[in-house]
């Protein structure tokens, strides 16, 4: 039997909202869905979205979390909230009241972050659920269409998913269109008559949105195939800001839930288990970086040094990379006890490379930033499309080599989509490597 009713939730919700307003937060209204654990597992498989297009990989994801959950290797998330207006969030029926209170306050923090952080400017929260819904319907209709069918749809989606992270890494920025660029070049030509750029080129500058580039310029794709690529691209663009702000977003939400619940004047029977849960959420994970831990501690430090109002400014203007770059210092990294490690082939073991002392802390910071969000994903972009329609891809090598067997597979997917010749240049062990 649960220890709460819907009336309890509404009662506490009112108080949470009042405190959040007093803190000066500005968030989307939140719709909570009360679901059971099975529905939670389903929601998780589709990254929380209430409607999502079909693909077997989500079935795989469900099986994976289901197995892990059943074996007790993983708990279910307390909170899941969607960047939409109104924000959709889930509460798990099986959870006790104090978990719901933490979750609800946490969700207010997330929703406030979604609404204010500049990375999310182009995510279109008012219509995003509808656009996922129509994408889902489109894919379903293709699957049911006898002239297309599930195999053809999967062929494209499998390939599109393989490059879904090859999208521009500056969310919140509007890019110049081809026409803008032509106009710009023409202006330059007027100023300097000797300047003669080739305006017939298909790409006037390198294109970082590989999916969109293929969808727009491939000469062999059918219309529905282009549309599928664009569906995947759109969903990627929607999720990229979240990948860019995982540490900040969680840190902010933890900061907010802690602040709110401390002002709720909870009775001991709710407050003590809450504190226990809170400490569990923000505990360091041995040998890993727990974004809840790092984000919470970093915001705590900033609030202590500069006050809550300053923290509110930071939550608007930063992403994880700039945030860590600006505010990580030796003292903080030492307190977090972070170290870098890597796999040594000769020793066949993982050993620690640097620790956060006065010699090593900068290396630790840099390594940490290299592993944040999309920095974990190799950057591959379209350098140009030649006259004979060869798609020239370049891996921007930052010291880390590609995993070649994987790259080979993805390369094959891209060839399948593009239909003409494709090249990919990278470096392996300091030698130029070309596919």
């Amino acid at each position, binding site marked *: 039997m649960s220890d709460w009713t*819907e009336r309890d*939730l*509404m009662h506490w919700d*009112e108080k949470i*909202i009042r405190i959040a307003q007093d803190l000066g937060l500005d968030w989307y*209204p939140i*719709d*909570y869905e*009360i*679901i059971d654990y099975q*529905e939670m*597992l*389903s929601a998780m498989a*589709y990254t929380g979205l209430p409607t999502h297009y*079909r693909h*077997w990989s*989500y*079935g*795989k994801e*469900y*099986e*994976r979390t289901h*197995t*892990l959950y059943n074996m007790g290797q993983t708990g279910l998330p307390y909170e899941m909230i969607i960047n939409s207006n*109104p924000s959709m969030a889930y509460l798990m029926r099986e959870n006790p009241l104090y978990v719901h209170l933490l979750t609800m306050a946490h969700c207010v923090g997330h929703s406030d972050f979604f609404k204010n952080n500049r990375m999310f400017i182009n995510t279109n929260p008012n219509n995003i659920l509808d656009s996922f819904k129509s994408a889902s319907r489109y894919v379903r209709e293709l699957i049911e269409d006898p002239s297309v069918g599930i195999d053809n749809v999967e062929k494209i989606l499998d390939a599109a*998913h*393989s*490059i*879904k992270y*090859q999208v521009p890494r500056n969310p919140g920025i509007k890019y110049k269109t081809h026409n803008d660029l032509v106009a710009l070049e023409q202006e330059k030509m007027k100023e300097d008559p000797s300047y003669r750029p080739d305006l017939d080129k298909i790409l006037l500058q390198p294109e970082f949105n590989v999916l969109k580039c293929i969808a727009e310029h491939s000469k062999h794709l059918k219309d529905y195939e282009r549309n599928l690529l664009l569906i995947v691209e759109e969903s990627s663009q929607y999720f990229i800001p979240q990948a860019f702000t995982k540490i900040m977003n969680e840190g902010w939400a933890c900061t907010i839930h802690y602040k709110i619940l401390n002002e709720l004047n909870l009775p001991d029977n709710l407050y003590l288990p809450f504190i226990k849960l809170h400490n569990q959420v923000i505990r*360091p994970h*041995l*040998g*890993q970086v*727990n974004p809840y831990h790092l984000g919470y501690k970093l915001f705590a430090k900033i609030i202590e040094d500069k006050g809550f109002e300053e923290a509110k400014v930071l939550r608007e203007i930063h992403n994880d990379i700039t945030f860590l770059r600006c505010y990580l210092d030796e003292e903080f990294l030492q307190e*977090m*006890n*972070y170290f870098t*490690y*890597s796999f040594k*082939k000769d020793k*066949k073991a*993982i*050993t*620690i*490379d640097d*620790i956060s002392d006065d010699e090593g802390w900068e290396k*630790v910071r840099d*390594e940490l930033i290299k*592993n944040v969000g999309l920095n*974990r*994903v190799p950057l591959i972009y379209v350098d140009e499309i030649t006259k004979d329609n060869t798609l020239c891809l370049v891996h921007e090598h930052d*010291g*880390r*080599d*590609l995993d*070649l*067997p*994987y790259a080979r*597979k993805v390369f094959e997917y891209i060839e399948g989509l593009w239909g003409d010749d494709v090249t990919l240049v990278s470096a392996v062990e300091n030698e130029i490597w070309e596919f």
Partner: protein
Amino acid sequence: MSIFRKHKSVVDRTSQDRSRHKKKIEKAIKESIKDVIAEESIIGQNGKKKIRIPVRGLKEYRFIFGNNEKNGSVGSGGEHKVKRGQKIGKKRAQKGGAQGTGHASNEKGDEYYDVEVTLEELAEYLFTDLELPDLEKKQFRFLSQKSLKRKGYRFEGIRPRLSKKETLKRKIRRRKMAQNRGTYDPEQDERFPFHKDDLKYHHIKPKKKENSAAVIFFLMDVSGSMSQDRKFLARSFFFLLYQFLNHKYEKVEVVFISHSTSAHRVSEDDFFKVSTHGGTIISSCLNLEVEIIEKEFHPHTWNIYTFYCGDGENWTADNEKSLTLFKKIKDLSQLTGYCEINESYKGLTDDDGDDAFGISSWATFSAWKNEEMENLWAKLSPLCDNKFKKVMVGDTEHIWTAFNALFGGKISS
């Protein structure tokens, strides 16, 4: 004010993607099964025994960084004291993890899942596309298992057999009637509940399933020339055959005959375990089969299938007789399969028309041991049609191809 609402959806929205994922896994299992069907470990096991087969995981490929020194990571030491050079593990933490019922294992950078399946499941995967050919309706039939079939509806019944459709139909009919009579007004937002009289239940009746009787003859050469390896291939072949028949038909009789210069009817156990010795006279076992058929399995009553497996060598003087007997057995049987074990066979494709296994080039790789021994393969060619098939197996990998050739399944490459 936030909104709280209970989740209304009743459908499991992951079900389609999960079943698609499952199908893909099954396909992956099927693809790897051919590599394991002739594994020593599975031959001679009973149906319930679980076997592990490695299956290529269904990976979602992305551009990722390789597992090299330059690709470092950051971790927290928590309360522990850490120092440079300290060893903290052997393997990089695996990305992903276990999937389905399997466990992830990492070999050569490729992801393999060990999936546990029982022999029965294995048979299910393997044999769904194959059919035992030409099961004729014979004079006498035996009744096999009774099964329950739905037949009509009743007003009385148990809850699990409630027919929602019929019940709803009756309710709709009753509502229409009430509407016509004016006792119910749909405009008014009034509920029109089910009534006990609406309920209808499925009725079930036991159904007897008829089946023709089938008998399978397994004939194996156990002469001295059947080396350990050859015997293993023959056994694998029969084992697969046996699993197939067991899987497809509820009731089949199986007769095991092994022969060298003379033939013996043996038990299943002995058949698969017996040691080899002596010369080869194929006609001996064919003779025995004909005798057994005459005594026990009248062709009017029984569907007869015969499978012979040997190294193809036969006493020259016996060839004529063997051929006559093969012809006779072919006439008696629905299908006769002749399988030759020949290590020199490399799995040639059909380059000479009706023979699926490149027989024209056969002479070049035939292993002759003895001038008095002669190979039967070429001599059997005139017999071949859809009731008499011959296949050659040189290695474990040919078994599955041979099997498909016999039962007309699609050979997947």
